[in-house]
């Protein structure tokens, strides 16, 4: 990345140096690793991932209380996330049979690549401990959250749902392509800070018309256009 390396805001020495940023990061790391550790105890054959999750938990606590200095947080947390991913993969593939005779079982390759990924992730994270690196960029919440919300709402609206959560039946009919597209457009446009109503409504209608024309009439895909109640 081109935006020069700014020194990380925290101290460089060993010892108790509680820093709010690392406190939070370390705690998140520890909690996720603990959750994976707990998950590992539900499944047989998970000694290796359990051990790894335990180590990551300790590292997370170490970071939170300032024992592990983090100089390159981008690399450190990035690498640790990959280690966590490999722990998850190891846990999930623990029950798969491994090598039998000369033949690989279904579980061999996932375990092989998980271990390799854990090694790479650890190496990246180690780099983050020792090498000075740029801080993690701040996340802006509004734009990304609304975009994701609009995508999810499209998924919900296009098919509707009929689920029971804690005994409460929830039902929504499938809204069909036209309302789904229109509302998803409107929701996502709120992600921008310069949104204007009239222009947005016109654009949403135009885009909906375009999509219907393209997908339904030109490409002949089977879409339900309007809500159907039954």
């Amino acid at each position: 990345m081109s935006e020069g390396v700014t020194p990380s805001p925290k101290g460089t020495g060993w010892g108790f140096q509680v820093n709010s940023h690392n406190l939070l990061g370390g705690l998140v790391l520890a909690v996720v690793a603990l959750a994976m550790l707990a998950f590992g105890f539900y499944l047989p054959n998970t000694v290796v991932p359990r051990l790894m999750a335990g180590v990551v938990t300790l590292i997370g606590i170490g970071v939170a209380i300032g024992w592990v200095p983090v100089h390159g947080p981008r690399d450190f947390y990035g690498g640790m996330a990959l280690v966590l991913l490999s722990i998850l993969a190891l846990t999930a593939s623990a029950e798969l049979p491994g090598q039998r005779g000369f033949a690989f079982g279904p579980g061999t390759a996932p375990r092989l690549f998980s271990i390799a990924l854990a090694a790479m992730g650890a190496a990246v994270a180690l780099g983050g401990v020792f090498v000075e690196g740029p801080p993690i960029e701040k996340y802006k919440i509004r734009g990304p959250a609304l975009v994701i919300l609009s995508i999810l709402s499209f998924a919900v609206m296009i098919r509707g749902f009929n689920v029971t959560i804690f005994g409460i039946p929830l039902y929504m009919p499938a809204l069909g392509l036209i309302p789904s597209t229109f509302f998803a457009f409107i929701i996502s446009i709120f992600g921008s800070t310069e949104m204007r109503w009239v222009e947005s409504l016109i654009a949403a209608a135009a885009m909906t018309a375009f999509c219907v024309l393209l997908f339904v009439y030109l490409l002949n895909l089977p879409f339900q256009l309007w809500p159907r109640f039954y």
Partner: protein
Amino acid sequence: MSELLANLWMGFHVAANPFNVLFCLLGALVGTLVGVLPGIGTVATIAMLLPITFGLPPVGALIMLAGIYYGAQYGGSTTSVLVNIPGEATSVVTCLDGHQMARQGRAGPALSIAAIGSFFAGCVATVLVAALGTPLTSIALLFGPAEYFSLMALGLIFAVVLAKGSVLKAVAMVLTGLLLSMVGSDLETGAGRMTFDIAELADGIGFTNIAMGVFGFAEIIRNLELPAESRDIVSAKITGLMPNRKDLIDSAGAIARGTILGSILGILPGGGAVIASFAAYTFEKRIAKDPSRFGRGAIEGVAAPESANNAAAQTSFIPLLTLGIPPNAVMALMVGAMTIHGIVPGPQVMTKQPELFWGMIASMWIGNLMLVVINLPLVGVWVTLLRVPYRLLYPSIIVFCCIGVYSINNSPTDVVIAALFGVIGFWLIKHDFEGAPMLLGFVLGPLMEENLRRAMLIARGDATVFFTRPISAVLLTTAIVLLIIAGLPKIRRRRDEVFVE
């Protein structure tokens, strides 16, 4: 030679079928349309438009996708020249001189030289693809599972070394992609792997979901975070499209050199077209009599990189069509598209489906011709398109992607998975991880695992087989040497410099 001509003739016969010409035209047009929009890269463009090709017959779909690819590339350079924002990574260097030319009122010649250079490069690369197809395919047919595995490993390492950013992180991304590809039913035993008992995951994670999430949604989310850029659109009426005689003479050499450089670099896995355009620009600047002209509207500075990136874009089909190995993220998308049409990319495509193979090659030439013919008159339309503000553009892209993802399997779950990968892709950007190696790993994953398992079975569980079979040993050794070289501090610094430049 006569065989080559006969094959090409058959290819043109397929490609000249009115429907295929129409698909090619549509692809080139739509590709340019999306490629012109700044902030949406080639990979995102193709990922976005993949679903609309699924309803077509395989040959038509692939021809259209190839058209979309060139169109997106070409559209990127239009944006570079007119707005000084690269539409694609491959046209970053085109900004330097192209936009200066536009400011001097020479946008027309800049665009037409870009088109002419691209067309010339496309012609040369088409012949190259056709000529190299047969010999490479016959080599590939000698390969056993061990060789295939080693070749794929080499391809992935190449992609890692030539990509920008940390090698370590890129390797980690490749491994992540490989792991993700293993979610779902096991190829041999049918056992569900890492599915967490979620029924929708039994078929594995859809390739389009990942591509759309990491390259489409994540890029949009990322752009929303950045402060709104002021766009400096060249508003003066573009007059005089055609370059004058001096322009043509000046750029002829640059086009030829760019084509050669691009053709070579395109075959190598990795950033292919991106590296080619940078290399061509640097080369031109170095051999120029008066290097200070560069950056102030030198026509060679447009001609060379544009020819190079188009040549590279096309020769990067060579490893895909002959060996079945995608050298970069765009080709990985092509593999995904082919698989959805039931075509397994690799040497057998040429022998079993010669119409598809040669038809696609011939359509490359037709596609390039169309770009020249349709794009220059349409410059005005592209300029209008560039005036659409981003705040209206991104919701359109999002709903378009949503419908596209949904339409593949009529599955809302796919849309949710794509959204999830959008978040993951956003996180990856924040932590300086690249999405492209992950996609490559994901696409190559099943093939790699299958060949690994087969090789081990044939060798009776002896892992040294990869080093005792000569071809495999050479491939793997090359991969390891490459990785070590890329890791050396001195080389790493030089590599970083190249990418910064």
